[in-house]
């Protein structure tokens, strides 16, 4: 598979910052070469889950009665 097709599949799977970083110089044939790919699972998913978790634990804020104060 060409590198650009592999990168496209990484992106389709959800990885971000997906890139072909470099070639390794190891070849298994005249038509192939070793390559290094990097990808990350987005942090947003964690942030979204954290926010959802926090929202589950949020208590209704206590209402404070404000008494008028004199001047």
């Amino acid at each position, binding site marked *: *598979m*060409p*590198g650009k097709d*592999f990168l496209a*599949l*990484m992106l*389709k*799977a*959800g*990885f971000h910052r997906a890139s072909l*970083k470099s070639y*390794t*110089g*190891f*070849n*298994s*044939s*005249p*038509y*192939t*070469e*070793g*390559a*290094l*790919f*990097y*990808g*990350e*699972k*987005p*942090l*947003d*998913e*964690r*942030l979204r*889950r954290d926010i959802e978790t926090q929202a589950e634990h949020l208590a209704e804020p206590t209402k404070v009665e404000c008494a008028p104060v004199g001047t």
Partner: protein
Amino acid sequence: MKGELTEGDRRSIREGIRGKYAQVAAAGAGCCFKYPTGQEAMRLQGYPADILATIPEEVLASFCGVGNPFSLGPIHPGEAVLDLGCGAGVDSLVAVRMTGPEGRVVGLDVTAEMIAKARANLEGLGLPNVSFQVGDAESLPFPDHDFEVIISNGVLNLTLNKEKALREAYRVLKPGGRFLVADMILTSELPPDLADKISNWYQ
């Protein structure tokens, strides 16, 4: 392969790959690859010399990776690492030197003979936080969000359904997790007489 694979093609490819790597497990990495293998290959790819010095030479001789996935970024102490297609487990043993005793390294490979070799390589090293198991990249036997890092070295090109394997890798990574891959890719069009050969999958 330009056309759709038949079920028979798929079976032939799986059997060919397993057969080749069973041979590698029995005869050693030097038997079957057109690129350098073993400790010399690891030196050429820039694996850290201080880590290589902690791994027995006969274990390093099993290395048949196509690059150095560790060159793509650090692995931190305490992290959980999946070595996808671990073969004889050399990269797993490198990874555990980076995670330290608080980390966890799991090596997964589709070839039972390779996992047996990886377990033999692990024996006597006193690394209880490394384990090896047989499994398929297209159906990972792990829960969602299980690993901070996945490393893979020369494996995904052998996977029949790469899209499924990548989706599985994504699933088992924790959010923010890193995917560090060395793999063989096509750099030019295969000539027509080679393009449809099943044996291209495991040469």
